[in-house]
């Protein structure tokens, strides 16, 4: 087995649990620690990619363009990557990111919509950037569909295509089957991006590796959306134990996780009840905080909101459906409880106040 190339995305996927509040100082410290530990690619962008700063996803505290430049300024060997989701960011932001120091772009689409990314791959290649395709929410479609979509990205000039388990909904055999299918069909590299909602981020990454993955993603301490990603320091340890020479300095990564990331994390992402629900229902990991907020506001269990979003087949980026679903659930809950009140009072019993009692 060949050692995979590791991309650390603490400064991009980690932007979600950070509520997009990374400061320039934090970004410099994290990028420098990763660079010194030998991580070859460091992703820095708003959690939802270039131009993700919005009401829909949350506004960035510091402009991502400034953060890209800050990260670039402290790296000696690592290259800076950015995420671009067509429909949110455009080639204009990509051009600016390139000027500010990004050399790799990861172009992400819902796993059935690769054909919206042609222009972005074309411009990325014209700019001389490495271009990686990201098929998001890849648990929603079988390997053969993903192969068709990956082939489109390959034809647009992608250097690699990732199977992205945005919902952390895959089990190891799901990850392996998808990666193997792409390896079979493509002549370019294949990558895998895990989320830990079902507690198998490392297991899925290993299964992907055995199926031939050339690239894997991690975040220090797993700092990412939902229950987080595969922890980079843990990946380094596991890969070293497999006897693979990744070029990563395990002790330095463990120190970076312990002393650089841990002190600035707002919380440790874990498979909490809501994160497990995300993996189980198969919804976008970044829905976690948004669903918790809506749940609190409308007196609903976030798990009910997340499960309903899964039933409606919500895709990457549809945070606005959370409010929509929460409002509907709150309305039907109210209708339920008044119906309950009527039924009971029709029986002639004095049960005033019962209408407001939360239902189980």
């Amino acid at each position, binding site marked *: 087995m060949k050692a995979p190339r590791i991309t650390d995305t603490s400064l991009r996927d980690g932007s979600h649990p950070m509520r997009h509040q990374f400061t320039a100082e934090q970004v410099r410290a994290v990028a420098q620690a990763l660079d010194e530990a030998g991580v070859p690619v460091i992703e820095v962008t708003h959690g939802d990619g270039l*131009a993700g700063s*919005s*009401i*829909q996803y949350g*506004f960035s505290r510091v402009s991502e363009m400034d953060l890209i430049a800050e990260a670039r300024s402290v790296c000696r060997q690592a290259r800076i990557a950015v995420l671009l989701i*067509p*429909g*949110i960011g*455009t*080639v*204009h932001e990509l051009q600016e990111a390139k000027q500010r120091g990004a050399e790799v772009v990861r172009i992400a689409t*819902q796993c*059935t*919509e690769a*054909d*919206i990314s*042609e*222009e972005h791959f074309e411009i990325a290649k014209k700019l001389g950037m490495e271009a990686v395709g990201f098929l998001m929410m890849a648990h929603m479609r079988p390997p053969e569909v993903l192969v068709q979509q990956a082939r489109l990205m390959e034809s647009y000039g992608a250097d690699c295509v990732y199977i992205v388990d945005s919902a952390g909904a895959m089990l190891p055999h799901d990850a392996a089957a998808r990666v193997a299918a792409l390896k079979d069909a493509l002549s370019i590299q294949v990558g895998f991006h895990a989320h830990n909602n079902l507690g198998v981020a490392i297991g899925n990454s290993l299964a992907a590796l055995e199926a031939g993955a050339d690239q894997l993603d991690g975040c220090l301490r797993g700092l990412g959306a939902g229950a987080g990603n595969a922890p980079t320091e843990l990946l380094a340890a596991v890969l070293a134990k497999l006897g693979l020479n990744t070029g990563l300095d395990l002790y330095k990564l463990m120190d970076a996780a312990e002393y650089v990331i841990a002190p600035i994390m707002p919380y440790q992402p874990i498979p909490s009840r809501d994160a497990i629900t995300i993996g189980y229902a198969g919804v976008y990991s970044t829905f976690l905080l948004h669903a918790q907020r809506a749940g609190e506001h409308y007196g609903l269990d976030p798990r009910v909101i997340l499960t309903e979003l899964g039933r*409606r*087949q*919500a*895709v*990457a*980026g*549809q945070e*606005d*459906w959370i*409010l*929509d679903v929460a*409002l*509907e659930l709150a309305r039907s809950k109210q209708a339920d409880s008044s119906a309950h009140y009527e039924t009971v009072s029709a029986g002639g019993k004095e049960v005033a106040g019962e209408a407001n009692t939360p239902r189980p």
Partner: protein
Amino acid sequence: MDVQHASNSKVKVAIIGSGNIGSDLMYKLLKQPGHMELVLLTGIDPASEGLARARSLGIRTSYEGIQAVLEDPTIQIVFDATSARAHVRHAKALREAGRIAIDLTPAARGPYIVPPVNAGAYLDRPNVNMVTCGGQATTPLVYAVSRVTPVLYAEMVSTVASLSAGPGTRQNIDEFTETTARALEVVGGAQHGKAIIILNPADPPIMMRNTVYAIPAGEFDEEAVIDSVMQMVKEVQVYVPGYHLKNPPVFDKLNTPWGRRPVVTMLLEVEGAGDYLPRHAGNLDIMTASARRVGELFARRLLEVQQEVAA
């Protein structure tokens, strides 16, 4: 201008483009002609299904594109449902030939036009642009807020069924976000506009959904905003019956680059009329319905002018 039309006659119109948009517009013009008479639908592919469909409905067709329009001097209004690149050429030819162009592509050679907001302002122009489907859906709501209280920032998120996003949108998705964002500013009245589009492949297909967020610049009266928005929804329903809010506007305080501020959120759903395209394709429906509406306003205006000339 040709004075041979009597004041009670209709204005002759043509459609260039025999794809989904052109076909849906054709059905709308046949169903509800108003002061227009559709006399020609042109494409560039002799084997096009759209042209065959038009012929079966008794509409004259041609596969010579704009040439057929230019050769018929009685056609006064031309709907262009081709592509941005083609429209750049068409715009020039139509202007030189003295025809009015209603541009359904993202080319934007003329001003953006959104019927309930600014349609009346540009009826003397030779070329107007219909923005984007998302722009037609959301700009009226931003304007409904900004006519009551100045809007610092407006953002729209459009979610459309994958099946109803055609190759034009897919190849030029940046054009959608950039054009729509500009329309939220220029037509909607927001100081800053932002647009996001998401394609959802769910089966069965979802209805077109738009979320519109607006951050007012200062203090404002929530009731006045609600009234203005609900009034605007009624105005759009006149020509897009499937246009409705899923909920009255929601008010919430959020952290923004301008500090902690109240944000107005509007959840909009657009169900298509199902004229030619399926009902979930509300995004295409609002585009063709708006274009028909603008065509009707131009037609009435031309007939008035002709009456004056005749008198």
